[in-house]
């Protein structure tokens, strides 16, 4: 397997913020690889295995048009993180490695009617309350232990399964991608082992780069779209980033193994075994899609359960004035069947966000004059952005954009650069309240470990993938 950092022969800049590696670069590539970047990001992207991994994706059976890397791309396993590839349903494959272990890891933004000054001196106690209310790491959620029938319902219905418990509203479902429930979910395709990892993890954040952050709208960049989204300067918001936890990890583990076993039957050979795949229309492909949708539903419900805990904390702090409206919830590790250019495609987004424009039928009706809300978290010390999807992204990236700033530094390098204590002091000097159970974990997620989010978002906008609407600034950070 070829996996070293390379400068492939023949990459060319084909538009101001778009590079292309022609399909002729490698004999096994079926389509070109296209990378959204400016010159600075391009040089960084060439420094790790991202491009080799993207070219490997371009070899998959049934891959359509081109494969794409978003400006936050970095090396992953199989697919690069920040990779998008669409496979024709009639003759293409589905790859669990193209979705990743944290199925439907995603982001949602809750919006309050509070101004920054209304937080007063409650920021520290509110952040502390959130850290106590939302289990992180691998702590279980004792209040949301699910029996087999209840877990089945969550796998089948997603966020909708929480309405009767009072943890979700009809409006929450309306403003969640796919209504917070993928109809193709097949709970029977989820193994007992995966269920045993997930039954006590609903409403938990997990670790690594997962977080709950209290934010303030620092700047409005598109007044008209901000008005559509109900955003104004100085407004307090909450950004939630987590996924399907151990249940999703196990689903991916189970199906990477299964597909590795059946690939010879379908005559599939790969440059990287982590791209293990099966035809979309095969029994194994269909079974994976059913299990993946079930895990995605678990993730939607997980973010919804955390939303309920955040609402409770705000209610304790501010009473009736502490209400939180869900602006939108969007997945960034998922494979979805979508129509593009009249073709039915299975779009794999690995560390990439759907970014549909104003005319797309899946953009909520209330947002049709702006576009689907997109969230690009930066790091806990810089900024995050709210954007609006564009119709141009449909042609330019199968309606996708990036999911964050993207790592610039390995976790080990980040820990060598700064201790967790140093990171905490820097953040506190900026007035940011931090709660994190692990000092090493804090160092790994330091702002310096990430690319410049402003540069990444600038490329997204200049390339026409999405339009900046508002910039958020972190006030309180709860890390997993």
């Amino acid at each position: 397997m070829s996996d070293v950092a390379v400068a492939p022969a023949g990459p060319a800049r084909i538009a101001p913020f778009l590079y292309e590696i022609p399909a002729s670069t490698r004999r096994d590539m079926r389509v070109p690889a296209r990378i959204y970047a400016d010159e600075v990001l391009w040089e960084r992207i060439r420094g790790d295995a991202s491009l080799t991994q993207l070219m490997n994706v371009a070899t998959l059976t049934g891959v359509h048009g081109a494969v794409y890397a978003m400006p936050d791309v970095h090396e992953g396993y199989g697919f690069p993180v920040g990779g998008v590839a669409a496979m024709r349903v009639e003759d293409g494959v589905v790859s669990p490695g193209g979705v990743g272990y944290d199925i439907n890891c995603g982001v949602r933004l809750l919006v309050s009617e509070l101004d920054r000054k209304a937080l007063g001196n409650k920021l520290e106690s509110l952040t502390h309350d959130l850290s106590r209310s939302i289990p992180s790491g691998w702590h279980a959620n004792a209040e949301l232990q699910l029996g087999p029938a209840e877990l089945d319902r969550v796998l089948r219905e997603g966020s909708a399964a929480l309405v009767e418990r009072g943890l979700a509203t009809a409006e929450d479902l309306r403003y969640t991608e796919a209504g917070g429930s993928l109809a193709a979910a097949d709970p029977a395709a989820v193994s007992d082992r995966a269920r045993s990892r997930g039954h006590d993890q609903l409403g938990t954040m997990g670790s690594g780069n997962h977080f709950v952050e209290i934010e303030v709208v620092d700047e409005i960049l598109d007044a008209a779209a901000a008005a559509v989204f109900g955003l104004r300067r100085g407004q307090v918001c909450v950004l939630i980033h987590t996924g399907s936890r151990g249940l999703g990890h196990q689903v991916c583990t189970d199906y990477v193994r299964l597909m590795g076993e059946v690939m010879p039957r379908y005559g599939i050979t790969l440059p990287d075994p982590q791209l293990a795949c099966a035809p979309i229309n095969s029994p194994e492909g269909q079974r994976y899609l059913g299990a993946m949708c079930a895990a995605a539903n678990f993730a939607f419900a997980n973010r919804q359960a955390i939303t309920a805990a955040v609402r409770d904390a705000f209610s304790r702090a501010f009473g009736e004035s502490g209400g939180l409206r869900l602006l939108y919830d969007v997945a960034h590790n998922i494979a979805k069947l979508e129509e593009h250019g009249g073709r039915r495609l299975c779009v794999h987004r690995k560390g990439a966000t759907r970014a549909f424009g104003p005319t797309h039928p899946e953009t909520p009706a209330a947002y049709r004059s702006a576009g689907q809300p997109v969230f690009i978290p930066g790091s806990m010390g810089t900024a995050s952005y709210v954007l609006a999807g564009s119709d141009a992204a449909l042609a330019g990236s199968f309606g996708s954009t990036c999911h964050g700033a993207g790592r610039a530094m390995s976790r080990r390098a980040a820990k060598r650069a700064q201790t967790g204590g140093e990171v905490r002091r820097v953040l506190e000097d900026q007035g940011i309240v931090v709660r994190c159970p692990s000092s090493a974990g804090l160092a790994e997620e330091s702002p310096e470990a990430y690319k410049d989010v402003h540069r990444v978002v600038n490329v997204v906008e200049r390339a026409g993938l999405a339009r900046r609407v508002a910039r958020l600034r972190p006030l309180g950070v709860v890390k997993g």
Partner: protein
Amino acid sequence: MNPDLQPHHAFVEHTGEERLLVHSPTLAGLFTQSGRALAELQGVTTTVPTDAQWRPVEVTATDSAALLVEWLNELIFLAEHERWVPVEFRVDLITPTRLRVWGRGPTVPVAPSRVKAATRHGLEVVRHDAGYRGEVVLDV
């Protein structure tokens, strides 16, 4: 094979994940060392209680590289599901497609949080003059 070579491991740079390299004079040592490396990555430094019981862990796969992934994924599952993190190992049976190990280690109060899965990306188990070299990327 070099009898002076002791099993050892290192984590090497990877932008997003953790890349584990393991060296051992024997295939059995490669697997037990990778188990110790995983416990280290999971932050489990607790000593083994004197009354800790040995218990078996068994996995199968199509070849020795896939076996390494199955072994690590089994340990990840046991850590998360049972909060049991073995740090001492005795290999009972090893072939390129089957591994049976007795493990002993602490039951930790909180399930380890760092590692989601062992992947097949960049996966290698290679025999050379001095023993074996294994490489695996762990999703963290």
